[in-house]
C-alpha cells in the first residue's frame, strides 16, 4: 500500500475544496493535494448550468459550470495536484486519510492539515416519511438535475415538486424549458426556502403555482408515479383533512433540504452541530479536532457559492498557518451564541487573537422577518444593530465583527447574535 505525506489534504474538489486549496497554496504551502470523488473538479457546480453565480466574487453573472471553470483554471495554473474518482474512506483524529481509486488502490495519506470540503446531500423521500407506493419517478431535485443537464435524459413529463429549495425551483424552470409540464411546487412551510429571484425567474415566469403550507401526503402508482396527493397543512405542519387534491403526474421531485455529508468528519472525531449537521468550528474554521478544518456546504448549507468560496479561502489560509506553525496561541475563546430568531452561527467560538481585523459571522434566521434588526450583544450591551428590510430562512445572513470590538471588550466570554423586531 502506498503511504504518502502531504502538508494539506483537501477532501473534495468542488467550489469549497478548490477555493481552500488555492488559498492554501497562495499562502505559501506548496504541498496541497485535492481528493475528488467525481470524475472532474468542480463538484455539484458542473450540473448547475443556470446563471446567477459569481456576482460577488467576479462582479459578473456566471453559470455554475463557468464559475467552477475559473477556479479549476486557477488551481491548474497554480499546479495544485488532485486525484479524481478518488473516494476518501476514513480520516483518523491524527489526520491519516485513507482513500481509494482505480489506479492507486487503497492509499494512506498522512496530512499536516485536513480541509473538509465534502459538500452536502439531499434529503431523500424516505427521510420525509411520505406515505404511498415506492415507484420509479421520484427523484431528489439534484439527481434530476444531473440526469437532465449532464446525461441529457428526461426524468419525466408531468412534474410535481415538493419543497421550494433553490434546486427545486431551478429544476422547475429547467424541466419546463425541456418540454415537461410542471404542475405545481408545494412547500410545507408558510414561506419559500429558496431565493426570491428564483421564485420570480423559475416559477412566476412560467406561471407555475407555488402552494405554501402544502405537502405531499400520498404517492400513487406501483411501477411509475401516476399521481400524488397534495394537502394543506396547519400551523403544526400536519395535513388538514379535506384539503387533499389529487394531481396526476409521472414525476415527483423533492427539494426538501440539504444535509452536510459528515460521515468522514465523524470518523475523525469531529464534533458536529445538531442544528447545521456540520462541524462546530472556531474563528479559523478549525473543528474540534486540531488541524482539521471545514468549509462550504459540509460545514453549513450556503445559499450562494460566492460565500462558499470566501469561507473556504479562509479555511485554506488558516490551514496554511497551521502547518507552517504560524498561528498565535488563542486565549480563552469567546462563545458565539445564536439568540432570538437566529438558528446557528458559524463560527461557534472566537479566539480574538486569531480573528484578524474583520471576522465574518454567518448565520441563518429561523423565520421570515420584515423590517427587523440584526443585533450583536456583548453581555447586555448592544454593540451592533443593523436594520434589514427582509430576513428569510432561505438566505444566509452575516455580521462582521471587528478587532475594535474585541479590543474594547477584554475578557469577553460570550457574544450573542439575535433578531429584534422593534
Amino acid at each position: 500500500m502506498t503511504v504518502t505525506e502531504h502538508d494539506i489534504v483537501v477532501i473534495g474538489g468542488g467550489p469549497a475544496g478548490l477555493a481552500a486549496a488555492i488559498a492554501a497554496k497562495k499562502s505559501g504551502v506548496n504541498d496541497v493535494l485535492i481528493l475528488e470523488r467525481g470524475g472532474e473538479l468542480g463538484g455539484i457546480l458542473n450540473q448547475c448550468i443556470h446563471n446567477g453565480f459569481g456576482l460577488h466574487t467576479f462582479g459578473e453573472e456566471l453559470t455554475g459550470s463557468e464559475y467552477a471553470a475559473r477556479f479549476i483554471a486557477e488551481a491548474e495554473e497554480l499546479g495544485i495536484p488532485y486525484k479524481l474518482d478518488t473516494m476518501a474512506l476514513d480520516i483518523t483524529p491524527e489526520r491519516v486519510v485513507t482513500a481509494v481509486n482505480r489506479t492507486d488502490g487503497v492509499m494512506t495519506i498522512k496530512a499536516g492539515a485536513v480541509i473538509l470540503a465534502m459538500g452536502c446531500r439531499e434529503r431523500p423521500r424516505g427521510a420525509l416519511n411520505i406515505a404511498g407506493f415506492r415507484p420509479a419517478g421520484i427523484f431528489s431535485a439534484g439527481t434530476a438535475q444531473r440526469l437532465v443537464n449532464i446525461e441529457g435524459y428526461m426524468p419525466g413529463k408531468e412534474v410535481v415538486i415538493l419543497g421550494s429549495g433553490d434546486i427545486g425551483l431551478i429544476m422547475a424552470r429547467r424541466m419546463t424549458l425541456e418540454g415537461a409540464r410542471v404542475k405545481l411546487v408545494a412547500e410545507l412551510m408558510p414561506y419559500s426556502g429558496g431565493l426570491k429571484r428564483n421564485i420570480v425567474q423559475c416559477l412566476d415566469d412560467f406561471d407555475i403555482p407555488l402552494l405554501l403550507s402544502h405537502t405531499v401526503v400520498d404517492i400513487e402508482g406501483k411501477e411509475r408515479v401516476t399521481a400524488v396527493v397534495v394537502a394543506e397543512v396547519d400551523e403544526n405542519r400536519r395535513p388538514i383533512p379535506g384539503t387533499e387534491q389529487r394531481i396526476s403526474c409521472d414525476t415527483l421531485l423533492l427539494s426538501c433540504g440539504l444535509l452536510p455529508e459528515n460521515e468522514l468528519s465523524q470518523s475523525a472525531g469531529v464534533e458536529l452541530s445538531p442544528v447545521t449537521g456540520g462541524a462546530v468550528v472556531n474563528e479559523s474554521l478549525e473543528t474540534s479536532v486540531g488541524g482539521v478544518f471545514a468549509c462550504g456546504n459540509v460545514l453549513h448549507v450556503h445559499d450562494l457559492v460566492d460565500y462558499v468560496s470566501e469561507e473556504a479561502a479562509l479555511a485554506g489560509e488558516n490551514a496554511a498557518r497551521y502547518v507552517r506553525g504560524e498561528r498565535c496561541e488563542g486565549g480563552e475563546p469567546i462563545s458565539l451564541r445564536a439568540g432570538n430568531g437566529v438558528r446557528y452561527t458559524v463560527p461557534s467560538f472566537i479566539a480574538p487573537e486569531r480573528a484578524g481585523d474583520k471576522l465574518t459571522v454567518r448565520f441563518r434566521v429561523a423565520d421570515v422577518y420584515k423590517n427587523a434588526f440584526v443585533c450583536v450583544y456583548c453581555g447586555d450591551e448592544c454593540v451592533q444593530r443593523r436594520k434589514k428590510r427582509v430576513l428569510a430562512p432561505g438566505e444566509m445572513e452575516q455580521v462582521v465583527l471587528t478587532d475594535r470590538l474585541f479590543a474594547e471588550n477584554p475578557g469577553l466570554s460570550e457574544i450573542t447574535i439575535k433578531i429584534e423586531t422593534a
Partner: protein
Amino acid sequence: MIYDTIIIGAGVVGCAAARFLSAYLADVLVLEREEDVCAGTSKANSAIIHSGYDAPNGSLKARYNVLGNAMTEKLSRELDFPFERRGSLTVCTDPSRVSVLEELRMRGEKNGVPGLRILDRDEALRLEPNLADGVVAALFAPTAGIVCPFKMTIAFAENACENGAEFRLNTRVTGLYREDGLWRVQTDRGEYTSKTVVNAAGVYADVLNNLVSERKLRITPRRGDYILLDRAVGGYVRHTVFPLPTKLGKGVLVTPTVHGNTIVGPTAVDIEDRESTATTADGINTVLERSSLSIKNLPVRSVITSFAGLRAHEDGGDFVIGEPDDAPGFFNCAGIESPGLSAAPAIGEEVARRIAEKLNLKADPDFKPERRDILDPSKLSTEERNILIKKNPAYGAIVCRCEGVTEGEILEAIRRPLGARSLDAVKRRVRAGMGRCQGGFCSPKVMELISRECGIPLDEVTKCGGASRITVGRTKEG
C-alpha cells in the same frame, strides 16, 4: 419437455424449495411474475429468524420455524449469506401480564425452542440498555437471529440455478390444470408441463390452490408498514425486541439488521388489494408510537426509508404445506406469513423431500451445496484489496458513497446468473442505493452500468422491471 417440478413463485420459499430440489437429479423450473427473485413478501419483512416460541404447540408454524432456525446457521455458511444469532427479547410492560411471558416460555419449550429464560428488568437492561422505562420483565430467546432476506433468497436461487434449476422471470401464471396425469401451467409466455407443482405464490397461493383443489383456501393480505433507520444509529438495539404478542401478530418490533441499520415495524392491517404495498401515514405514525413502548428515545429522526410488506394470512391461521388429497402432485406452500422467513429453509427441504419420494428422484452426485456471495472488497485486508484492484480496477471505484459499494461489485451483481436488471435488483444484491441518500448520487451511475452491461438504452433501465422506467427519454429529442 416435461419438468419434474414447476415452482410457482421465486420468493424465499420457492427459491429454498428450488435449491433443495436441485440436489436431486430433477428438471426444475421456477416461474416468477416479477423481474427478479425476492420481489414480493420476501423483500419486505422484519429480516429476522424467530426462535419459535410464539406459534401454537403442534402447529406447522411452530414445527418449521424451529427446524428452519436450526438449519439457518449451516446454510448461511454454505450459501454465504449474513446471519447473526443475536437473540430476542419479548418485553412486558404490564406487571399484571408477566405471567404471559411464562406461558410463552412453556409454549416455546414444547415447540422445542432451546434456552428460553425469563429476565427481570435489570437482567434485561444489561442485555439491552435502551429498553423503555416501563419494561418490567422479558422473555429471552437466545436462538433468535437476524438475516438479510434478500441475500438469503438470492443465495438459494443462485445455488439452485448453478445446480441446474431453470428460472423464468417476468412470467406470470395465468392458468393451471391437470391432464393425463401431468400438470399444465399456463403463463403469459407460453405453457409448461410438469409432474409436480410447488405453489409458493405468496399472497396469490389461495388463487392457485383453488384452481385445482376443492379444499379451498382464503388468503388475506395483511399489510405491515416499517421504517428503516440509518446505520449511524446502529447499535441502539442489539437484539430483536418484541412487545408481548397480540392476536394480530407479534406487534411492533425493533431490531438491528445484519447491515447495521435498525428496522422498526410492522403494523398489521388486513386489506383486500394483493398489490397494495403502499405505506400510509397512519401506519408510519403507529410504528413510531408503538416502538416507544419497548425502546426509549429511539432516534426516529434518522429514518432513511419506509416500506410496506404483505403477509399472506390464511384463514386457518397456520401454514398450509403439502398435497391436498384431491390434487396429487400439487404441493402447497401457502399461508406463509410470519415466521415464514425463518421457516422457509425447512419448508423448502420438506417439500423437496416429499417430491423426491413421490417421483423417486435420485440424489445428484454433482450437487454443489456451496455458493459464494458477491465479493465485498471492504471485507478484505488492505493488501488483498489492492491486489484485487490491480487485477480489476473496477473494485477501486466507489459508486455508492453511502454504503461504499464499488463498480466491481455492481458489475458482478449484473453479470451473475440470475443477474440484476434493475436498480432495485442491484440494491438487493450489493446495497448500492440502500444507504442514507437512497440512491440520489449513485442511481445515474448504476443505470449507466446496467445499460452498458445489458445492452439496453439508458432510458429503458427500470427501478423494478415492468413500467418502472427511471427516465422517459432524451432531452432535445422529444
